[in-house]
């Protein structure tokens, strides 16, 4: 009996040992491949210019490409990858796709451990976090990627950081007002008019006092910050919130106080659906029951979200111009790409990665396969291909056309996460009446300054 027992333990122990050893063996092997790969990368760096041609004939290469999206995007991307692999039979592209949730966390983790994919879809707003911490993303200007096809100004607005082109924007967009057309005709909203914030409030107040269940608009904290608060400030100044040269705020405390006051008035006049009720749907305002049932007339949103709002309510949805202050110096919204493809600076096959990005963004075949599933026409080539075959959504096009002429160019610092968190926190405090707009403005200036001092 005794012997049997100890035998069992011996077996268990040896299993444990075996595992330990197996683990070590594997890691050693992984190290070797990595260092070998580094050497290759260094060599290929020298022969960069011929890479595009040689990639087509060389030995097998495997690329990892990560993106987030919905089923439509997944299917279009996979089809595009298939076409790419058919064109370059020696290249295999491993697709790593998922939903939006968790993608950021995953990419950050992978970047930090050197396990990130060769090519990845990222948001423009992430670049300062990533590149600020180290040289993680390749400069596309040094790689065989044709950046000249991008629409004028788009690369500067969305792809450049510290003089490097870290991102090939895969979409272009702006912000607009989504309107429920039935609500609009019932309550006299003039879709062709450019409303001022005050006029919106007058209208909203009239609608709500007529019928308590109705509100002109709704918003969560993020929308309040990005599409009420910030545009309001920029309409006053005409420039990005932070001047990157001096690292100072471009707006005054009075501007901020006015912006907070405007948001507060929106609630007090009954223009916006009460914050608590709206915030239940934070992050997906299209799920707001009132909006779905036509009890809310309009939502400020991004042009890229057109399909979401279009599908969410039974009435037809149209877009109208962004509200503005009188004598605005700009319409306060950006015309840029908030998403794009980036190449891992430590990629073992950086030139093949560049070849792939160039194919995805500039090849007419790829563009017509992808349609608008990857994004909205960032390049002139895409315009040519997609406008010709009519794949481009009407609503989105209209939204962008309305926004573009008077838009402004923002910068990386103005999009800093800490700044955004600060203003969001303060907006909520104002809405809940914990601080007055003036107090909030004072605190905002102080906090912003602190963050900016740290960034310097």
């Amino acid at each position: 009996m005794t012997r049997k027992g100890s035998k069992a333990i011996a077996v268990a122990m040896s299993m444990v040992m075996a595992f330990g050893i197996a683990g070590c063996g594997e890691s050693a092997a992984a190290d070797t491949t990595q260092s070998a790969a580094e050497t290759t990368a260094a060599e290929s760096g020298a022969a960069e210019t011929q890479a595009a041609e040689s990639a087509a004939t060389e030995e097998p290469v495997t690329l990892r490409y990560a993106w987030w999206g919905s089923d439509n995007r997944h299917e279009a991307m996979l089809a595009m990858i298939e076409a790419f692999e058919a064109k370059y039979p020696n290249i295999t592209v491993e697709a790593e796709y998922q939903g939006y949730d968790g993608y950021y966390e995953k990419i950050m983790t992978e970047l930090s451990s050197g396990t990130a994919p060769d090519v990845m879809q990222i948001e423009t707003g992430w670049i300062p976090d990533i590149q600020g911490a180290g040289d993680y993303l390749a400069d596309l200007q040094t790689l065989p990627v044709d950046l000249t096809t991008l629409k004028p100004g788009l690369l500067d607005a969305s792809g450049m950081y510290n003089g490097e082109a870290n991102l090939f924007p895969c979409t272009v967009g702006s912000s607009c007002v989504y309107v429920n057309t039935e609500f609009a005709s019932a309550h006299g909203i003039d879709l062709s008019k450019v409303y001022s914030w005050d006029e919106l409030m007058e209208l909203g107040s009239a609608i709500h006092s007529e019928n308590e269940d109705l509100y002109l608009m709704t918003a969560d904290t993020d929308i309040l910050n990005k599409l009420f608060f910030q545009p309001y400030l920029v309409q006053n100044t005409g420039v990005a919130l932070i001047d990157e040269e001096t690292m100072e705020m471009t707006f005054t405390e009075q501007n901020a106080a006015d912006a907070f006051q405007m948001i507060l008035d929106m609630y007090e006049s009954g223009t916006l659906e009460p914050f608590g009720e709206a915030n239940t749907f934070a992050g997906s305002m299209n799920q707001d029951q009132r909006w779905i049932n036509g009890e809310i007339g309009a939502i400020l949103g991004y042009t890229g979200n057109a399909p979401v709002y279009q599908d969410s309510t039974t009435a037809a949805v149209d877009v109208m111009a962004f509200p503005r202050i009188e004598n605005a110096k700009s319409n306060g919204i950006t015309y840029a790409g908030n998403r794009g493809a980036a190449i891992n600076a430590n990629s073992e096959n950086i030139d093949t990665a560049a070849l792939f990005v160039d194919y995805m963004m500039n090849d007419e075949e790829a563009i017509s396969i992808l349609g608008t599933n990857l994004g909205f026409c960032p390049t002139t080539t895409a315009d040519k291909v997609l406008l010709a075959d009519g794949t481009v959504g009407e609503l989105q096009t209209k939204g962008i056309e309305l926004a573009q002429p008077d838009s402004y160019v923002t910068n990386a610092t103005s999009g800093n996460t800490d700044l955004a968190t600060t203003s969001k926190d303060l907006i909520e405090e104002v809405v809940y009446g914990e601080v007055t707009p003036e107090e909030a403005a004072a605190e905002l200036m102080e906090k912003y300054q602190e963050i900016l001092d740290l960034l310097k």
Partner: protein
Amino acid sequence: MGYSKNWKWGMIFILPWFLGFCILQAYPLIMSLYYSFTDFSILGSGDFVGLDNYIRLFTKDKYFIKSLTVTFKYALISVPMKLLMALIVAMILNMKLKAINLFRTVYYLPSIMGGSVAISILWKFMFMKEGMVNGFLGIFGIEGPDWLGNQNMSLITICLLVVWQFGSSMVLFLAGLQNIPTDLYEAADMDGAGKIMQFFKITLPMLTPVIFFNLIMQIIHALQEFTSAAIITGGGPNHATYLMGVKIYEDAFRSLKMGYASATSWVLFVIILLITMLIFRSSDAWVFYNDGRD
């Protein structure tokens, strides 16, 4: 105190855990402690900043104390409610009822569903201003509150969610009830002790190891709770459900202040450790073990 006769066997038995601790767990723990003294941002290597993170936490971060308060409130409300609920239901489901297997399964369903997307949508539907719960209250002429949007209600709503998922505690109580030898009850019956008397004299004392376990675990979990607030309210409105777990996660992965989040975590660690030690100390007085030790 002397070691038991076969103490070497004991050490062999715990070896899997010990190896696991040394190989898999120790390094991440030590690193997070190290990060707490740096400005590590996940991507950057992180410079040593001494006690800066800790000082900032207590002097400059106005949401730290708020978050701590919310977390304690949450634990104080949810843990007793959950344990009481689990115990009562376990007692009832331990009775010899028809279709008892079905009932036991049904009562575990909410726990099986965990923190899925279905739960987050459903919960919003139940508790939004014009939602099902208020519709139900409306039948009786009660105007329900804005469960999720009102600062004073949203934490309660989150508590309701986790109390409703009392399944794991219930399972442990059910298992614990099976470990009570039936002859104890038979003897009590012969002595003429009533059911209530039996509950307090036999069931409760015999269950104390499980109650103790559930209490410790639920407190440890409650003080780190993240999922319920993250999927339902995202910590809002106006930080009313800003649990420590949410704060730490947001600092770590949203603002990429992993060093700062680590410091917050270690403060939380010390708090949890102190509370746990307190309960362990108190256990001598109220936990009854059958193994004739301690």
